[in-house]
């Protein structure tokens, strides 16, 4: 510092002279230095502001793109749902209404039968024999009241015949009534049949109507998505985020399942694929076990695709029903084969573990308890069951996997937008700070040269 002093013996004076000289210099160079600082401010802060603006426009574009992707994917999903529902309606019509003519015929037959029975049931009152008129005619004959014996006898006979006729008519009527009652009682099951058939018709029609109702619901959703309002976007975004979180959880759990599966078959695989080579630090046997686990997942994806549960490969979705069925059978057979292999490997694993334990005991000199180990079938059964079940569970992973892939597009875009937005804000803040800093420097600069400035102003005003 002392080397800057003009008079090293007089530091204060040297500093005062230096300050005064710098003030005069800075006063004289005020205009170009102000311009230089302004340019610097414009260059840095302005540049950063432009970057921030550019980032904002990029964010807006990305948001718009993300919005479009979200809408388009949901429109496609809705269309797919509606198409599926139409297929279901068709299937429902085919399934439920196919036997409707038969049902109708049955109903018709039953009604005809009931009608016939009803007609047969029509009660006809038997007419009384025509004795009354005859009695009345005879009674009106002269002498009938004078006690003519012949007429009296005739009347008695007629009376007796009338009573007999009435009795037989009543008996006949009772017989007919009983027959009618029998017919009526035989109609009851037919009525029940008709009622049952009607119920069947009602159920089938309800099912068809229910399926049709779903289409209406999906159509409403579809229209809503097509309109693409802010509420719909928020709803779709929230739905995608929810799906993403759920699928992440399920995939994580499935990952643990795959790890357990791998551990179950890695040891026995070393018995089947013994090799002194490693790939990326892993035993070839371990890689083989990993391949089996991965194959299970792949077959699961094909199974779900063939079933129409997922729609990852459009080629599979476009296959004919027959080909899809073939793919389905192939996937099921493949998983069954791998599950059987795993069950066998799990049994082998238990055997190897038991042998290892027995060998260690034998080497340590203790009495071998292999009999006890062999006797324990529970572990073997448990491991074999686990080995057979896990592949089927892993095969289901295709569903959350598809969900994850679909929802991750939107969620990851949202995350990227958030990061870019943050960067934009950061650049904006830095730009603002630099701008303020430059202004502060200019003010300090002006404050530093206040004395020569004031003197200059004084001289200017006087001149």
């Amino acid at each position: 510092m002392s080397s800057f002093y003009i008079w090293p013996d007089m530091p204060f004076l040297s500093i005062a002279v230096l300050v005064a000289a710098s003030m005069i210099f800075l006063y004289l160079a005020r205009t170009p230095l102000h311009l230089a600082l302004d340019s610097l401010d414009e260059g840095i802060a302005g540049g950063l502001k432009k970057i921030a603006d550019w980032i904002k426009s990029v964010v807006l574009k990305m948001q718009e793109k993300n919005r479009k992707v979200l809408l388009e994917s949901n429109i496609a999903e809705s269309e797919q749902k509606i198409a599926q529902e139409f297929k279901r309606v068709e299937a429902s019509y085919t399934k439920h209404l196919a036997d409707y003519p038969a049902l109708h015929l049955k109903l018709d037959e039953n009604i005809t039968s009931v009608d016939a029975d009803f007609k047969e049931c029509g009660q006809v009152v038997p007419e009384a024999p025509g004795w009354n008129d005859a009695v009345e005619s005879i009674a009106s004959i002269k002498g009938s009241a004078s006690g003519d014996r012949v007429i009296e006898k005739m009347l008695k006979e007629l009376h007796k015949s009338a009573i007999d006729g009435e009795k037989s008519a009543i008996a006949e009527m009772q017989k007919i009534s009983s027959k009618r009652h029998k017919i009526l009682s035989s109609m009851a099951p037919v009525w029940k049949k008709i009622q049952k058939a009607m119920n069947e018709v009602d159920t089938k029609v309800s099912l068809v109507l229910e399926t049709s109702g779903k289409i209406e619901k999906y159509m409403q959703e579809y229209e809503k998505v097509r309109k693409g309002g802010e509420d719909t976007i928020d709803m779709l975004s929230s739905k995608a985020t929810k799906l993403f979180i759920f699928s992440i959880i399920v995939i994580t759990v499935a990952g643990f399942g795959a790890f357990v599966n791998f551990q179950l078959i890695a040891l026995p695989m070393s018995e089947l694929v013994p090799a002194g080579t490693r790939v990326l630090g892993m035993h070839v046997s371990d890689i083989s076990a990993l391949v089996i686990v991965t194959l299970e997942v792949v077959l699961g994806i094909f199974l779900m695709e063939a079933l129409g549960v997922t729609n990852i490969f459009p080629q599979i979705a476009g296959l004919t029903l027959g080909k899809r069925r073939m793919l389905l059978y192939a996937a099921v057979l493949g998983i069954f084969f791998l599950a059987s292999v795993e069950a066998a490997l799990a049994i082998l694993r238990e055997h190897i573990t038991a042998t290892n334990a027995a060998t260690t005991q034998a080497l340590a000199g203790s009495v071998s308890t292999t009999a006890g180990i062999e006797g324990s079938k529970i572990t073997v059964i448990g491991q074999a069951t686990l080995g057979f079940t896990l592949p089927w569970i892993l095969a289901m992973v295709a569903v959350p996997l598809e969900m994850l892939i679909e929802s991750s597009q939107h969620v990851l875009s949202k995350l990227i937008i958030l990061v870019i937005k943050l960067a934009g804000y950061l650049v904006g803040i830095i730009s603002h700070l630099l701008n303020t800093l430059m202004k502060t420097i200019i003010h300090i600069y002006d404050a530093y040269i206040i004395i020569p400035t004031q003197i200059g102003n004084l001289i200017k005003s006087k001149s």
Partner: protein
Amino acid sequence: MTKRKIIYSLFLISGVLLISACSDNKEYETAICALADISGTYAKEKKSMVKIIKAGIVPKLVPGDSLILMSIDSNSFNEENIKGKLKLDYRPSQANQQKLKFAQTLNDFADNESSAKYTDISGAMMLCSSHLKSTNAGTQIMFIFSDMKEELKPGIKRSFNNDEFENMDIVAMNVIKLNEDSANPQVFRSRIKKWKKRILKHSAKSWNSSLDPTEISDYIDEKR
């Protein structure tokens, strides 16, 4: 460039990457050498030595590992001193059978009552070192079952190369105290200290003389 050429190039690159990713198992394997002193008073320790090897070392070997048993006698730098070799098969079932067979070799060694007048520890270590190196195993451990008192036969000279024990972990196991050690512990301590200095000077990775037989398993796991 045609589509076919691009596909061929991709296949070629994938193949090269796969081949370069393939590595030999050796660097993940463990080679162990057990040196058994059969000279002087230590010859009585044969059975306990074999017991330690059988219970502590052999069960810890995994498919691909190797074990060599050598004896320390008057002139140990001799192939005849190799009493048994074991290289485990990659199949666990075969490996177990090999272990049981090797246990029999160890039993035969323990039953053999031969002993030596002199103690050539250095010669055995040199022989062991060359065998361990030939395995190229990633982990190389040398267990010395001895009182660590070397008595070379007149005319025998032993000097280690600078990299004699490079990449090797050396453990002096079951070091029993001799009468003179009991009389003056400093004799024992200075003897062990000298060995430590000598071994570490010749590039050994580590030296241990206080390992308990029950800790062998953990020690091998730690070094793997």
